């Protein structure tokens, strides 16, 4: 048996057009703590389009124009390998702006 990662539970919040498209404000997802698994588990609930909307398979990372925040910090600003912890709040925004 290979090593298994401990299961964690995180809350995903959707905003703007993503909320409109999937008709969901927030959902709780159980995953192995990796971003890939989190998004994959969420797309099991929301539908497979969700995965492609958020994740760029070719690049192997969250899509460039998606604003992906863990506990209020953009993953682009986090150093080291991203690990989702129990009770983390994940906020996902499509490209938005204002002023």
């Amino acid at each position: 048996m290979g090593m298994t990662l401990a299961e964690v539970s995180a809350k995903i919040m959707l905003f703007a057009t993503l909320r409109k498209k999937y008709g969901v404000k927030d959902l709780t997802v159980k995953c192995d703590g990796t971003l890939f698994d989190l998004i994959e588990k969420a797309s099991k609930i929301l539908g497979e389009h969700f995965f492609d909307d958020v994740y760029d398979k070719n690049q192997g990372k969250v899509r460039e124009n998606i604003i992906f925040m863990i506990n209020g910090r953009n993953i682009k600003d986090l150093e080291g390998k991203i690990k989702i912890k129990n009770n983390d709040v994940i906020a996902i925004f499509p490209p938005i702006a204002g002023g």
Partner: protein
Amino acid sequence: MGKILRADLSAGTLKVERTSEDVAKKYLGGKGYAVYLLYQYLKEYESKGIPPAEIDPLGLENVLIFATGPGTGVPGFPASGRYHVMALRSPLTGSIGSANSGGEWGPFLKFSGFDIVIIEGASDKPVYIAIVDGEAELRDASALWGKNVFDTARILKKKVGGKNTSVACIGPAGENMAYMACIMNDEHRAAGRTGLGAVMGSKKLKAIVVSGSEKVPVAEPDKFKEISKRCLDAMRKNAVTGEGLPTYGTAILINIINTAGGLPYKNWQTGVNPNAEKISGETLAETYLMGRRACWGCTIGCGRVTSVKSGPFQILASEGPEYESVWALGSSTAVKDLDAVVKANHYCDELGLDPISMGSTIAAAMELNERGYIPKEDLQGLDLKFGNAAALVESVWRTAYKAGFGKYLALGSKRLCEIYGHPELSMSVKGLEMPAYDPRAIKGIGLNYATANRGGCHVTGYTVSPEILGIPEKIDPIKPEGKAKWVKIFQDFTCVVNSTVNCLFTTFALSIKDYAELLSAVTGWNLTEDDILKIGERIYNLERVIINKYGFDGKDDTLPKRLIEEEMPEGPAKGQVVELEEMKEEYYKLRGWINGKPSPEKLKELDIEL
């Protein structure tokens, strides 16, 4: 070249002059041209023995300038339905007066045959200026004095008639010289900041009506057509200007800024609003939105048409509220009832008030009151507590009419907090209330607030774009390092946009290079990216020279103590304060400024003649 209308309201005369190509080559148009003209006034006053620091913002010497630029009203020039207004001094701040507005008035001024309108002196009785097909007239406005913005616009539009007619006017707030009164155009559009409506009121100028069908010249039409097509395509395909802003408008920022821990709540006591969702752009779209209203020639169309369908704050039809208005009226005041926020915003439009300064001043009054600093007899029963929706709405109309406690609110938060002995509770810079981003969570915007010439302003250098939205690239909002260079380039480039004059939102999709090409084709001058950034830097520095003459320097490039000394109590920026001195030192170095003043070498390098 274009035409300038110079109105001397004291003498009751109107003069027509030509714009200068030499000045335009150095300062472009719009804001830049206005800054140049304001500086000439200061020089003239100084030669007559009137020191700039003694100019009364509501006195005869103050000058008001409405200005368009080479891009304004050009069909195909991206989002070019705007104009810029400036005054020598703002009554709210004592610094330079500066504001910008969309709608139709800017392009229609050009269609009326003029590029710039200068207002000098003051009239004895209420007047308005009608500019129709190249002819300008000063007319009696006695019958309009006291009327609100919507009625004034409706009456004057009908009276003047004609094609492409638009009204810029003041409401009761401007007439009564509330210090945060704004100039309104096309009903719901505002040249909002620095109290320019009060300046108009002090001159007894109720409105400027423009109308006409003159074509706006383009120097190289074929080249322009090609560049315009490319830029407009880019804007339509861009996720922000093509989808995000059209679908949700600006209020969509409420949730993301709150998530980042930077949405000021309860007069900036924290950056996390527990009720943000209730006043968010998503909620606004689901519950209040009836449609969109775009400015002239705009492909984005971020303006919201809204209504409150029932209840005590019912409104048949309104526009907005924008992100800034929702925040100031709803988050800084802790009012979670979006009905009331929409209503308060509607009153700001109807009576002619800047919602940012209005909401922030109410929030400051709420904190003063909750801490027991305002005597009961001053409030006359106005229950200024955080979260009180009715008190919010009542405070807005009281301010416009200076009724009861409104006479204190009408002074703005700086004077209000000084009167009650707690100046530290005014969340303002140089007297201008700061907008909707807490710099403890977004450091670059703090440096921009501190160094913005007009005071606490976000659109002088909107570093929220890279810091939070990741445009044009993502940088970490809570790190102070490297922010100075972003602030400088955003401030300089924004001067170019405000002198073009078109909409800042284009910059989410268009680059400095796109601007250089668009401006080259319209003017026929061969402008590079470096050229236009130098123009922007020149404008920013001359504006700085002007405010230096009023006594503003490095000591005023600062932030409220709360942001420098009080740690953010919660959220992702918990424990953070703004490392202002560190960022400012780097910024001054990049700018070539000493203690907030451009060095002689810098002025020489920028070819600024004093």
